């Protein structure tokens, strides 16, 4: 009986060790996945959709020093938009107003400085290609148009070519919004 008991204890300790290892390992993987999802969007279901491939933005090939100098517009998340829009359907979700302020903070400088214009144009280009909300993508495209127009005299920037190319790639829903704002 005593021998059976010590054998049972040994088995129980081993099982606990295996359970603990699996739990830690599994949790760590799950946590990492959770972070990845949060950086993109929270899916409505457990099914993770296959995202369409997006051509690399010019910022993908930047050096570390250049990346530090990039503008972060804080793209609005679909989850926050939905949360705020459900709370107050008649109000423009605050996440979009914050986004408007982020663009405004950089636009005036970009209208007066070539370097700032280049940085903002790249940030807007990235937004047009990757933002989750169609409204945000359209807003970014319209602002790109403003910058292109503002710097049309300076052909070295190549804004007009990039702007025209992006237009060809706009999804239908974003294209409609852009047309509505023209």
């Amino acid at each position, binding site marked *: 009986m005593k021998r059976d008991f010590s054998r049972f204890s040994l088995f129980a300790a081993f099982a606990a060790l295996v359970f603990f290892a699996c739990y830690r390992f599994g949790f760590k993987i799950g946590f990492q996945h959770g972070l990845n999802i949060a950086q993109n969007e929270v899916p409505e279901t457990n099914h993770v959709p296959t995202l369409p491939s997006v051509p690399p933005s010019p910022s993908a090939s930047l050096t570390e020093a250049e990346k530090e100098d990039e503008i972060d517009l804080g793209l609005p998340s679909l989850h926050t938009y939905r949360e705020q829009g459900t709370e107050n*359907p008649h109000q423009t979700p605050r996440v979009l107003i914050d986004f408007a302020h982020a663009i405004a903070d950089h636009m005036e400088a970009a209208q007066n400085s070539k370097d700032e214009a280049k940085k903002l144009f790249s940030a807007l280009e990235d937004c047009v290609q990757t933002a989750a909300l169609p409204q945000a993508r359209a807003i970014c495209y319209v602002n790109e148009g403003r910058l292109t127009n503002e710097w049309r005299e300076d052909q070295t920037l190549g804004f007009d070519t990039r702007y025209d190319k992006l237009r060809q790639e706009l999804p239908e829903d974003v294209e409609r919004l852009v047309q509505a704002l023209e």
Partner: protein
Amino acid sequence: MTESMSQRLSALALSILITSFLPHAPAFASEIAIDQTLLPVATQDLLRNDFEVIRGISVEDGGKYSEPFTQIFGGTSGEDVMRYLEERIHYMGADSGGGDKGIYAANYSPVFLTYIYSRDVRQSKNPKVTKMKFEDTTVAIDSPRTGFVVVGDAYTWPETSWIDRLDTLVHEARHSDCATIPDADDLTAYQKSQYLNISMEGRTCTHIHMPCPKGHPLAGELACDGHDWGAYTVGYVFSKTMYRSCVGCTEKQKQEALVTATDDFSRLFKDVQDRWLSGNAGTPDMRSVR
């Protein structure tokens, strides 16, 4: 001083700061009654201030942006927009006596549909009329043009933008329009919350919203329009015009107008967007039964 009080004061200060950059007209008394008992003082002040800002609006005339603006408001001046509001909003009240936390704004005119359903379809001898508290009295919502709009705390939140408040007033006012009384089928569908079964003509009475379609970020919410020239279209025209043609707006205000216009247009069903973009939306019917 409580946190909410300090927030309201900050909102008011911010609003005054913003509007000081805008052209101002002299302060006229508005025909819109503001509840001085149930609405917080900061909300009353902000509403008066917003009406004054609207009077001071100046839109460049003659451009392609001003055409739908003129069709809706009857002209391109702030006075025209105020006239549009005064015909449609007669009371600015508080919901549940004192402003519900988080509630932004709502026009009670669509409850008129319930009243006429009870009166005309159910042929009730004593159809129930919704009554709203206003100061020390009550207001019966027995016409779409009763124009009872409530505002809540969110109206004065510091993060609520200037253009969004004005856009909302214009949007809510449109809910007071009903050119034709809906037929029995439409009224029944409305009572049963079968919104998509309501005909295009029926939807225009108080310009009721539809559930946003599948694929929309607000899918299922009653936050979209399925007919031409509804409240979201009116808001879109107003905000887009402010973005394109506002005289004296700062960059921040222009960007706020741009996002508000974009969001309003995104609330239109695809076929409504199509008709708008192809120029086939016709002209707006701004009339209403009383």
